[in-house]
């Protein structure tokens, strides 16, 4: 409806956007070959965070069901991929995809159960779930070797890890774009704005919420597997660490929850800041993120994207 009236500017912008996108992709493709490995590693980390923040965004940004425990899916994927590689010598790519699928499969019953809970109940249940899974991972010693963690044969292949993370990120961004520009995405946003009204309009809210939840569980599971393969070592405190859930939320909210580019902006800016200033001081990192959460909630609840919209730098109806 709106698209018709603004067809011409959208097309011009679309062409510019396409050119910029291709240029960025080309630049990213040569990064691991021209930059020193520690810089490339930073890119790997940034891609991982963007993927995580975008996945969180699909359930929490679009439908408004804020999850405080998305690290649960990351840890689940990391553990199942690592176990597949160690026990069954599955190829790492297949193991990572299996990790993502497992997280998605687990999310189906979980979604049916937990998405009946609204607002703070859902948020806190997810937090409890991720804490409970961490406990399971550290107590189920015969399977997970408990707190001593799982070691994989070291691969030391930064280039493959780089492209695996980059591909995961591009896919999740593409999926987010498809969702937000589709009727499905509009229905998710309707659920966020007023679930009762959405339901009375004939939207099957349960099916929409659960499917969004499953999509948003797949990608953390996938990059959890890549992470395990890349570092060749995981333990319960590293892959279920609550700070991961925190990072996803803060990056998404900083950039602008409910948009495609918001988590990208948040992921890039906050990973860069974190690395540049306080990588050596983890307490300071979390404390500054805490202050940032407070500032975002009080002063910029829509994040950077919303600031750009209200300043007229982006069209008011911009949803990507």
């Amino acid at each position: 409806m709106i698209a018709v009236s603004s067809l011409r500017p959208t097309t011009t912008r679309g062409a510019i956007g396409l050119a910029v996108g291709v240029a960025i992709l080309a630049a990213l493709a040569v990064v691991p070959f021209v930059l020193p490995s520690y810089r490339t590693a930073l890119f790997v980390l940034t891609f991982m965070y963007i993927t995580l923040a975008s996945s969180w965004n699909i359930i929490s940004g679009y439908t408004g069901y804020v999850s405080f425990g998305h690290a649960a899916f990351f840890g689940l994927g990391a553990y199942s991929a690592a176990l597949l590689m160690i026990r069954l010598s599955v190829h790492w790519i297949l193991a990572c995809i299996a990790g993502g699928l497992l997280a998605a499969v687990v999310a189906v019953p979980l979604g049916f159960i937990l998405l009946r809970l609204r607002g703070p109940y859902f948020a806190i249940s997810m937090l409890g779930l991720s804490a409970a899974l961490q406990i399971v991972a550290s107590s189920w010693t015969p399977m997970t070797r408990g707190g001593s963690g799982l070691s994989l044969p070291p691969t030391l292949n930064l280039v493959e890890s780089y492209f695996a993370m980059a591909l995961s990120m591009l896919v999740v961004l593409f999926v987010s774009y498809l969702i937000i520009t589709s009727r499905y995405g509009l229905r998710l946003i309707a659920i966020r704005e007023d679930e009762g009204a959405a339901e009375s309009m004939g939207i099957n809210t349960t099916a929409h919420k659960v499917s969004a939840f499953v999509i948003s569980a797949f990608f953390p599971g996938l990059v959890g597997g890549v992470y395990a393969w890349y570092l060749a070592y995981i333990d319960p405190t590293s892959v279920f660490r609550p700070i991961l859930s925190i990072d996803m939320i803060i990056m998404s909210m900083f950039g602008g929850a409910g948009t495609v580019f918001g988590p990208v902006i948040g992921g890039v800016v906050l990973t860069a800041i974190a690395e540049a200033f306080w990588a050596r001081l983890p307490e300071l990192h979390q404390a500054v993120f805490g202050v940032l959460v407070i500032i975002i909630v009080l002063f910029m609840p829509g994040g950077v994207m919303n600031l750009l919209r209200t300043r007229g730098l982006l069209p008011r109806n911009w949803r990507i």
Partner: protein
Amino acid sequence: MEISTLVQLLIGGLLLGAVYALAAAGLNLIFGVMRVVNFAHGDLMMLGAYVAFWLYTLAGLNPLVSLLATVPLLFLLGWGLQRWLVDRVVGQPPLMSLILLWGVSLVIINAALFLWTSNSRSVPAFSGGIELGGLSISRSRGIAFVAAIAITGAVWLFLQRSRWGKAIRATAQSSEMALVCGIDVARVRHITFGLAAAMAGAAGNLIVFIFAVSPVVGPTFMLKSFAIIVIGGLGSFQGALVGALVVGVIESFSAYVLNSQVSEAIVYFALILFLLARPNGLLGARL
């Protein structure tokens, strides 16, 4: 399992439950008045525990006496949090206040880590046990229990009898009507948060007799308190007591049969089960 072990575990769980009840009643009070879930509640408990620890370690102060410092300090902190931060999001979707307080929680935890390191701290002021008809009851739990019941009772009396207590209950029933009746609702909110923070601090001050406490325990305490008010019934003062006793007993039994880490996971699963099967809790009113 012998019957005496069973009784001892039950009593141990009930004693611990009373301390949880004190904290959970505070969480419930904030929820009842403002529909806000105080995500930093466990961190306020942690701060209370550290007040007791430092007064004991530096000045040799009896940790029961240190309640006289913990309660006013945490009251002021809670009052300030409400006055300067939470007031700005009251009336917005409940998730905004939850995320805001979660930011506050991060700041408190990491400030504590920075200032006091991640070491676990305990106050070994009351060691040993009390022999009671063949049962041995931990002295620290007994003392914490008596103090927790006394403080919870005092708060209950305050809410039932005093003018401010009535104002708080009126605001919980309907803040618009309370406003129309001439109650200063903004001040009621400040006092409510202050009071609840003081209850959390007092509970922390008591819990450090029983467990060692480190700066990162807050979220665990918060989850437990939340589980308690969900099990007992949101917004119900007596419900917090019942829920806390249930959680205390679940925890003490599963810690004995399995281990203390797994007992935490069991509390979370109980929370989720209750949210689904009985969202109004055992005693809660329909929301």
